[in-house]
């Protein structure tokens, strides 16, 4: 493995020299070289398999856009959002909201799916890493917007009411698959990629939308 990509690199370098100018390879060759280097550099460890790097079209398109420094064109972004929205799994029992107390625990936890976790570790939602949620927790990140008063600000007095339905559904979809609404969102697709279970997603929704949740006080 290691040898292969070294040969490739030397070949690319040699090609550049032969062409008369010691310049870097073209963009497509660099992409190919990067793939080779990734293959040779990463290995299975614990519960994490190297195969998790074989990602889907959403990530491929967004990574390429990031490298180019240009956002995705509108048509591609819309197509990615549509396909992600289609994959959202709605609550099988029709219950969007679980227990906000469990939701808070899930929001606090950053555990799961690293090579130092074991398969039995319940996955956390990593929510506080990026969002303010319950005001009592002062240790929160700012990569995502504040979710304090999430339900209150959106006028959700009764999450089961028809009035609240659109926002409840949107919130479920956003947590389940963030890319359904923003193609290259930094937010993980908690339900789609199996980070959280259906009942965990419902608990997180309760944290955000239950009028009794400290988030909405």
């Amino acid at each position, binding site marked *: 493995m290691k040898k292969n990509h070294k040969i490739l690199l030397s070949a690319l370098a040699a090609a550049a020299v032969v062409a008369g100018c010691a310049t870097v390879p073209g963009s497509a060759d660099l992409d190919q070289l990067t793939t080779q280097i990734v293959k040779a550099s990463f290995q299975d460890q614990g519960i994490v398999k190297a195969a998790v790097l074989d990602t889907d079209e959403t990530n491929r398109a967004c990574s390429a856009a990031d490298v180019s420094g240009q956002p995705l064109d509108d048509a591609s972004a819309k197509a990615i959002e549509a396909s992600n929205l289609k994959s959202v799994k709605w609550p099988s029992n029709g219950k969007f909201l679980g227990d906000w107390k469990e939701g808070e625990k899930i929001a*606090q*936890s*950053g*555990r799961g799916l*690293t090579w*130092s976790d074991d398969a039995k570790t319940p996955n956390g939602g*990593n929510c*506080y*890493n990026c969002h303010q949620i319950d005001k009592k927790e*002062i*240790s929160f990140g700012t990569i995502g917007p504040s979710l304090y008063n999430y339900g209150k600000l959106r006028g959700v007095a009764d999450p089961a009411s028809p009035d609240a339905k659109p926002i409840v559904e949107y919130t479920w979809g956003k947590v389940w698959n963030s890319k359904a609404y923003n193609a290259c969102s930094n937010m993980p697709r908690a339900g789609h990629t199996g980070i959280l279970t259906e009942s965990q997603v419902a608990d997180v929704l309760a944290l955000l939308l239950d009028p009794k949740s400290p988030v909405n006080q």
Partner: protein
Amino acid sequence: MQSRRQALKKTAVVAGLLATTSLFPQFAFAAFNKDAFDAKSVADALKALGAGAPTESKDVSITAPDIAENGSVVPVAVATTLTGVKSMLIMVEKNPATLTAMFHMTDSVDAAFSARVKMGQSSDVYAIAIMNDGKVLFAKKEVKVTLGGCGG
């Protein structure tokens, strides 16, 4: 203090012999006041040291952060400008064991020490001066322990 330490050392020699049978490993430590370091409260630790009840004093100072980003390393400085100090102590009230460090004075050092301690949770941290005349003076400060990074 010296005579007490000497006495403890003598006990330790005997205990050391016993310890070879691994029956009493806890006695193998010389000069280390195990009872005081096992105590679960400020009062119990002082009792184990044979010291009386502490009085809050403006002449004792404690310097520690308001919030520690990591409980594994909390910088704490304890000091007093008073003379006649026998020992300076650092205690963390809510740790599994309260007494953390004990500095025995001589005339050749200032009654001012800085160290770093572990804290399992938010707690009052005490600077305690045990005086030669038996008085026990203290200052305390609340240190909040929070989580800084991804948190795993």
